[in-house]
């Protein structure tokens, strides 16, 4: 128990930024994301004994965060308001720079994804989890993980294409994978 608690505390310090990043990408509300991370911290310490595999602590903490998010959705479903998202994103510069436009658009698009797709794509792209780890965190089969990623990226692609129909970015970066 003591070793687990010490490990969890260390991991919480190391993973706090990642947990906040994930929580924010799920709810897009800074204070709520902070609450979710703090609730995760509390529950992780409270349930330190339940951590069986200490090597999987990152996934364990993320699973707790996901459960905190589900709890919130269950009790606050009626408060979700995607239209308010633009008001909470970073203020644009006066000349409206492209980078901020992309950030705003991607955030808004991700906010509009179904919960399952939103979680999967952020877990893989932001936290770097493998499909198998995501399957365990969300308690879903790997096939579901893959299909959700696929659908989420198709939706994002449509949103980004609308933003930049020339697709110059893709062609300009072909060298990256050679």
């Amino acid at each position, binding site marked *: 128990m003591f070793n687990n608690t010490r490990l969890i505390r260390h991991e919480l310090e190391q993973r706090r930024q990642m947990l906040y990043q994930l929580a924010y990408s799920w709810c897009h*509300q800074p204070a*709520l994301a902070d609450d979710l991370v703090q609730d995760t911290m*509390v529950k992780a*310490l409270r349930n330190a004994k339940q951590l069986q595999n200490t090597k999987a602590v990152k996934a364990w903490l993320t699973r707790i965060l996901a459960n905190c998010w589900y709890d919130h959705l269950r009790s606050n479903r009626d*408060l979700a308001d995607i239209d308010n998202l633009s008001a909470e994103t970073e203020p644009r510069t006066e000349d409206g720079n492209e980078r901020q436009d992309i950030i705003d658009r*991607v955030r808004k698009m991700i906010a509009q994804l179904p919960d399952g797709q939103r979680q999967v794509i952020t877990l893989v792209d932001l936290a770097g989890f493998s499909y198998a780890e995501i399957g365990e965190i969300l308690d879903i089969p790997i096939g579901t993980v893959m299909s959700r990623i696929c659908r989420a990226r198709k939706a994002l692609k449509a949103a980004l294409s609308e933003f930049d129909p020339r697709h110059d970015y893709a062609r300009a970066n072909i060298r990256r994978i*050679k």
Partner: protein
Amino acid sequence: MNTRNSFSDEQLQAFVDDEIDIAERAEIMEAVRHDDELACRVCELLQIKDSVRLAYREPELPANPPASWKSGWWSGTPFRAAAAVLIFALGTVTGTALQMNTTDPLSHTGGKLASAAIANQELKRVVLHISTAESQRLDQALSDAEELLGSYKDRPEMVQLEVVANTEGLSLLRADTSPYPERIRRLAQQFNNVSFLACSRTIEKLRMRGIDVHLLPEARVIPGALEAIVDRMQEGWVYIRV
């Protein structure tokens, strides 16, 4: 060799996510060299991946919670979380397995709940975490503190209370924003077993936004609120979040 039509979207997703074996990876990379359209499909996926990372590289930090969710969220979950930790801490201290009722609305009974639970311990060591600027909540928190300290004024060695303020809650300890400077001054003067601790990270963030932070004379600055709270929890302190 496969042509571009041989690779499904799922395969290419797995490729950009590094979820395929070396042989298949080599096959796709080789195909990409000879097929511009396939290269574009892969690059679009990489672009999307990069865009998601870019979008959340610097997530906004909590500053001014919007009113649209404040009332619903704030009144429920933090108090349930506080109750969870409180019960956890008590369970640790007393060795008693307690169950948490997550469905009961605790927002109107937070103070009584805390007092009743605290009463079960021998030595009362409580960290009161203030993370809201809502005047009503701050009032309740200070009332709890006054009640707890007051009920042990003849045995102050039995109680230790730390009031830790961060994020929005720092306003309680700021000279220019605190709604209750006089109550804090009275508590600090009357009891030497209470500390008012201000999170330096929050102060730093406010200063970066051009806000000149002046704390009440009773407040002491600590490096990080959460770290301090985790330390206290490990030492068996009861944690109550406001």
